[in-house]
């Protein structure tokens, strides 16, 4: 049985901001994927994922973000931007090459400015 995930949701200048809390590993990545997919299905094309309250993410969670980024990019002018990462998580995104595909910035304000 898949585990649950806590994700806080805000709007910032019309952009959906998701704030996952705690951890995303292979046990709760399916719940995270379902939540993001529901938003995309509801028509959200611009999404910021704020890592400020995330202490751990494994490749299962990164895979969810990769697929979501691809999905919103397929929509007209959509984008998914990541912000607020602690250094250790940012390093994982760097060594995996993910930061070359999904924009990673410092703050939500920076995320809004990503073209």
């Amino acid at each position, binding site marked *: 049985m898949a585990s649950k995930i806590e994700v806080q949701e805000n709007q910032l200048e019309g952009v959906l901001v998701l704030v996952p809390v705690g951890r995303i*590993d*292979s046990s709760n990545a399916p719940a995270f994927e379902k939540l993001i997919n529901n938003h995309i299905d509801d028509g959200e094309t611009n999404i910021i994922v704020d890592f400020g309250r995330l202490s*751990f993410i494994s*490749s299962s969670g990164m*895979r969810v973000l*990769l*697929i979501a980024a*691809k999905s919103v990019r397929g929509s007209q002018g959509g984008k998914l931007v990541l912000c607020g990462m602690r250094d250790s998580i940012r390093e*994982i995104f760097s060594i995996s090459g993910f930061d*070359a595909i999904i924009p990673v910035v410092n703050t939500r304000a920076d995320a809004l400015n990503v073209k």
Partner: protein
Amino acid sequence: MTATIHTLAIPSATRYLKDVRRFILRHARKAQLPDDAIEALQLAVDEACTNIIEHAYGGSTKHKVDIAIIVDPTRVMVRIRDRGQPFDQQSYIAPNVVALTRQGQAGGLGVHIIRKLMDQVEYLSEGRTNEIRLTKYRTH
């Protein structure tokens, strides 16, 4: 030169991964490994256990994963054993993330992350038992 060993056995289900990470955190802290090395070890062990649960055991939760953390003055090594399908490291190809994005998948990424984070990664097989050894050396 003395070594200490602590062991943990979990059922082959991903809901126990948080217990594994807590186990690694506790003993790696006691071993006075730096914080960045502890986080790397936690992630590498999580990825290795996920691969065992999802691939070696094919998602079946009826099996067991044995984890041991071995601490000595030069290194911290985590040994993980299973009795599922062995990992074929000969046919492993490091993933091309750009290509994976196009395909909408990211399989193989866990192994890539493990190799990048660890100082040494070894795969062994004896009889039906598979073993992966993940090592972080101490830097003085």
